[in-house]
């Protein structure tokens, strides 16, 4: 029995500190996936929602897939629900995503600032992908999950995952190509 399964069993038996350890073990990956899907500003709310959903459904965890994969399925659903509920993005944010300069906060060395700006622009472009494409691309190309794990997380057949990833990459390349600066990034 793996460490997560032991903690799940203890949490189901009423040990809240076991659940706390589960949150500590997985908070980073849950937060990262949420941040890539909904943006960093809202990732903490989505992470909290995902962990509470998991807490309330802990008895449904069968252990067929690793706990992390089960948790990421919940995170994906929480993030997509959060986005569906959210009102239209403010105009300023869309402009920023489409390539307006990002304001620098405080003093930061030029290369660090440039790197941060580049990452923020790229994150913004990833968030322009359709939700199903975004999820697959984030899980595969940023988080490095296997196709099988992504099929579990997205509850989709393996073939669909591969097809979606291919289309997601094409969509993102197309978005980046609209702006020479994004596609011809300095090495």
């Amino acid at each position, binding site marked *: 029995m793996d460490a997560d399964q032991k903690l799940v069993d203890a949490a189901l038996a009423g040990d*809240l500190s076991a659940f706390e350890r589960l949150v500590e073990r997985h908070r*980073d990956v849950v937060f990262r996936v949420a941040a890539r899907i909904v943006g960093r500003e809202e990732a903490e709310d989505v992470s*909290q929602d995902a*962990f509470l959903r998991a807490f309330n459904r802990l008895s449904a965890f069968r252990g067929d897939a690793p706990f992390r994969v089960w948790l990421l399925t919940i995170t994906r659903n929480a993030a997509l629900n959060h986005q569906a509920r959210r009102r239209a993005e403010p105009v300023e944010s869309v402009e920023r995503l489409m390539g307006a300069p990002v304001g620098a906060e405080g003093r930061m060395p030029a290369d660090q600032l440039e790197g941060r700006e580049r990452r923020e622009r790229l994150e913004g472009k990833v968030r322009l992908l359709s939700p199903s494409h975004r999820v697959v691309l984030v899980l595969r190309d940023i988080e*490095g999950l296997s196709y099988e794990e992504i099929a579990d997380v997205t509850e989709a057949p393996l073939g669909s995952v591969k097809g979606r990833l291919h289309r997601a990459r094409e969509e993102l390349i197309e978005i980046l190509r609209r702006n020479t600066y994004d596609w011809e990034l300095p090495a």
Partner: protein
Amino acid sequence: MNDDRGRDAATPAERRLLGYLDDLRADRPTPGTGLVPAVVRSARWQRAVRPYALSFGRLVGAIGTGIRLLAGRQRSR
């Protein structure tokens, strides 16, 4: 997590894209220190009220069933 992403990049454009995405991959945002205590606090609170919420839900369900039965009986008269 494995890392065989490079193998399934079919085109030069995809390989280039993966190079860009490596930037995001290297950047690993972390949640604030308040996340874990907030989750645990909410979980504790939810666990405390869950039995009452379930009882209340059952009560409301029973009342609804009762009303439907009464309404059905009156309609059949």
